[in-house]
């Protein structure tokens, strides 16, 4: 790994000036390295962070579940890493014009890293320095504790996707949130809405009543407010106490933190070093969290800028055709498949155009008539500003959920592609399943990175009880037992997992009852779900229906 030559560096400095002029904002310092294939072998298991801690499984091809691994998105391999200064990697025999294109792409990423709110927690420090310190720490621990360190890394990594990324984002008060006393917050957020199912009118009236109490002292104000409520709803206190009892344990702590704080096994003098390891794993996972949650936006943004800036760059005239060829490969929408570069890039251009014509407005949205929608034009000149604010405040979910509209789907002839088996031809056929924006949107959102939500509490004799909040998909069964064994090790006692799974036996039974031929069972029987409890005790996994 070596720095790029002075020649390339000077070209890149020129790119930076042009990018800054165009409105991108980023630190002036950057580092560019030439990497060889051997370097890649070392870098890729560490997600391109050269200083990441060592872990033995990195030496093996890590597959994320054979045929199923499309479901388990991994941390992205960027050509640029979010450090201070940002570091990017290049192939050693690229022609100059290609390096210019790549560098514009890189600048798009750097701008995104340094301005998108979801990366906020990575702004204050240089990850590669931190990682280096942690790597040394791990190495020292390894020399003292031997392979035990590997187990702790492994088991901590087993639950590192459950790290409370969004909770950590809201820490530190960078986002304004109502700071209500717990009783009041419970009343408005839970009691009125879920227990009483109050309507909007009543809700607003109550808010008004609360605001109307002109009392400085919070405690007195709260009492005054609840006086009336307790008269009509004497059960309130009971509900509130029950709720607080259930929810205080895990409040704002993710599973890794909770284990670090509460595990009796770890909180002994001889095992306290494990905390360091778990903390490192957790921090690393938090660092990568925004990146995987902004994949589409990040690539779309970078593609948008590499195209725009490259075409404006006067230094590389004459390479337009070669550029177009590469650019098309990167940003073309595939006939079948999802390409984040293509979708993100098109969506940014689409939004810009919409905002430019004033179409991102209430006024436009309320028009039903296709013709008037098409002819609608209230030029604002704010297109660019708008996409800059999108770049700052959105993540993949909000971006796709908000901006994929029927107009967008129609414009690019997008569709949902389904699969079906053709028994006669012994093939799997692809067919156009839907061209509706709603379907397209839910298909994309369904394929986004979304770790399961697991709540936890301690029950009985120091048993760690995990509860998976079922969102329509079960947990991947093959991985459950080993993950649980890992948690059991960290917790130092029995661990339970409550989740919901398809009841295959029941489905089979129903299939037989309805007299369907065996082949058709799957098509005819509706999915039946059952609640199950996995228990990991002394590294033995048992499962029963509850």
């Amino acid at each position: 790994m070596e720095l790029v030559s002075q020649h390339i560096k000077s070209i890149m400095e020129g790119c930076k000036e042009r990018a800054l002029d165009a409105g991108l904002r980023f630190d002036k310092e950057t580092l560019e390295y030439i990497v060889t294939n051997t370097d890649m072998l070392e870098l890729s298991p560490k997600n391109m962070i050269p200083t990441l801690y060592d872990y033995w499984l990195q030496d093996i091809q890590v597959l994320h579940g054979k045929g199923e691994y499309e479901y388990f998105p991994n941390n992205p391999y960027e050509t640029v890493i979010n450090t201070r200064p940002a570091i990017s990697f290049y192939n050693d025999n690229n022609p100059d014009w290609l390096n210019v294109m790549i560098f514009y792409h890189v600048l798009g990423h750097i701008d995104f890293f340094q301005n998108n709110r979801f990366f906020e927690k990575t702004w204050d420090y240089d990850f590669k320095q931190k990682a280096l310190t942690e790597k040394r720490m791990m190495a020292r621990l390894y020399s003292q504790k031997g392979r035990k360190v590997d187990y702790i890394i492994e088991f901590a990594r087993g639950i590192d996707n459950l790290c409370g990324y969004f909770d950590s984002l809201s820490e530190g008060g960078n986002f304004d949130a109502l700071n209500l006393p717990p009783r009041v917050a419970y009343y408005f957020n839970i009691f009125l809405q879920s227990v009483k199912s109050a309507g909007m009118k009543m809700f607003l009236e109550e808010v008004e009543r609360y605001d109307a109490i002109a009392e400085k002292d919070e405690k007195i104000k709260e009492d005054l407010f609840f006086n009336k409520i307790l008269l009509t709803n004497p059960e309130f206190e009971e509900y509130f106490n029950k709720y607080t009892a259930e929810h205080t344990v895990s409040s704002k702590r993710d599973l890794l933190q909770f284990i670090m704080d509460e595990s009796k096994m770890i909180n002994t003098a001889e095992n306290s070093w494990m905390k360091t390891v778990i903390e490192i794993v957790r921090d690393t996972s938090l660092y990568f969290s925004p990146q995987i949650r902004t994949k589409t936006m990040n690539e779309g943004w970078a593609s948008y800028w590499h195209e725009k800036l490259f075409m404006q760059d006067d230094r590389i005239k004459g390479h337009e055709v070669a550029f177009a060829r590469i650019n098309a490969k990167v940003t073309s929408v595939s006939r079948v498949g999802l390409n984040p570069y293509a979708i993100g890039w098109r969506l940014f251009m689409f939004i810009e155009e919409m905002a430019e014509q004033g179409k991102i407005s209430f006024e436009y949205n309320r028009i039903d008539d296709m013709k008037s929608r098409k002819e609608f034009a209230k030029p604002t000149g704010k297109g660019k500003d708008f996409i800059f604010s999108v770049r700052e405040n959105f993540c993949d979910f909000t971006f796709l959920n908000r901006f994929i509209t029927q107009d967008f789907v129609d414009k690019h002839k997008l569709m949902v592609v389904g699969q079906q088996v053709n028994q006669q031809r012994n093939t799997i056929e692809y067919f156009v399943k839907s061209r509706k924006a709603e379907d397209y949107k839910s298909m994309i959102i369904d394929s986004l990175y979304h770790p399961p939500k697991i709540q936890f509490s301690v029950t009985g004799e120091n048993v760690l009880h995990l509860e998976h909040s079922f969102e329509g998909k079960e947990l991947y069964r093959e991985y459950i037992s080993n993950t649980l064994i890992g948690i059991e090790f960290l917790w130092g006692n029995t661990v339970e997992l409550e989740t919901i799974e398809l009841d295959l036996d029941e489905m089979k039974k129903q299939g037989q009852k309805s007299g369907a031929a065996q082949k058709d069972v799957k098509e005819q029987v509706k999915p039946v779900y059952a609640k199950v409890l996995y228990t990991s005790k002394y590294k033995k996994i048992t499962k029963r229906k509850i």
Partner: protein
Amino acid sequence: MQDNIGKPEGSSFQLSSTTDDKESSIMNDSDIMEAQKRCILRPFLSFYDYQDINVITGLSPFGSATSRIFDLDRLLEKDKLREKDGFPRKIKLGKLIKPAKNGTDKTIIIPSATEEKFYHWMREQDVGEGKSTGGSGEGDEGEVIGERQLRPDDEGEGEGAGKGGAGDHGMGADAYEVGRVLTEQFELPNIKEKGKKTSLTKYTYDMSDKNRGHGQIIDKKATLKRVVKSNLALGNITGKAEIDSTKMIITPGDRIYRILSRERDYESQAVVFFVRDYSGSMMGKPTEAIVSQHVYINSWLVFQYNRQIKSRFILHDTEAIEVPDFYTYYNKAVAGGTDVACAYALINKIIEDENIARNYNVYIFHGTDGDDFDSSGTAAINELVKMKSFASRIGITIAENSYNSKNKTVVENYLRKSKLLETAPDVFHLDSFRADEADEERIIKSIKILIS
């Protein structure tokens, strides 16, 4: 249009080229392998498969599977320790690629590992709909826009027996690789010391040699003996009087040390018989399962017990024949009916004629689909009883045909009836499985059962 879809369209491997003239050089072997693997895994790419590294810069984020293994032995050693620590093993052994139709495929072991976490996932086959993905272009709703073969991984694998590539006889070298990995999992059971006549150029190092005066570790007992001896000679110790240790003299020459020594390692020898039923009923899946299993066992033996093992190969339908090498054994095509006893009889005859049992441990691995025209199995059992006296292990694998779903197979029935499995559990091991359900993992598990 349909052609387009059969391939992983827009795959990163097509994109990885940066300029025209580089296109060929960038697609190296590992890329192609990777692409093939991905093609099998997924017909199309999802969001998270696109990475800057391969799409934009033309670098490959994944080194080739083989180059990633810096030190396989070390990793497997680590993996072994996991079992000792009471955790399941992590490293799984990858695909054994059999000779392809054009005979160019090589056998490579790819170790892989998974990082288990809680992941969401939908069992589509149970919910009744296939996974949807994105797409673009023309076509009305409901219109079929492309197709691909139902089981792409069936392609190019050959049927095992009969269909294997004819170009390459290099099973040995490949087998060595496979064996090296399998060695970490298996060990021959009941091996006895018999006829130590092979002089091996294999050495072990020990601290067993002794040296007077200097060395690495002092041998206290020997030194003390020596001191007593010297002092006896000097007259410091007399027969009856109490021994006064303060008067004893210790010379440097009395100190006896142990030093590093090179020991010749003798190992026991064995003859392994591979027996395969190649009758008509074995056609298809059963043959494939049995043959893969024997490939594994043979590969492992070639590696682990290279010089001390002689393999013999026997094929039978209603008549048993011995074939000279594994290649023939592996590739010989299917023939007529089934008589198990004749194969066992042939083995007994060979052992008797060549007086093998005196100098060698004898192992017999028999693979069949469980059919036998002699349903009582009297003759076969008789032969097995004869074997019991000398064989260290007889492992019988029954790869059941799918049409034989409910009842146990003929062979299994008479074996169980004969009680041989109970009376000589050390010698007889039996494993039966459904041939169409036998994936690699099952086959390896089966080997473990046979040799455990």
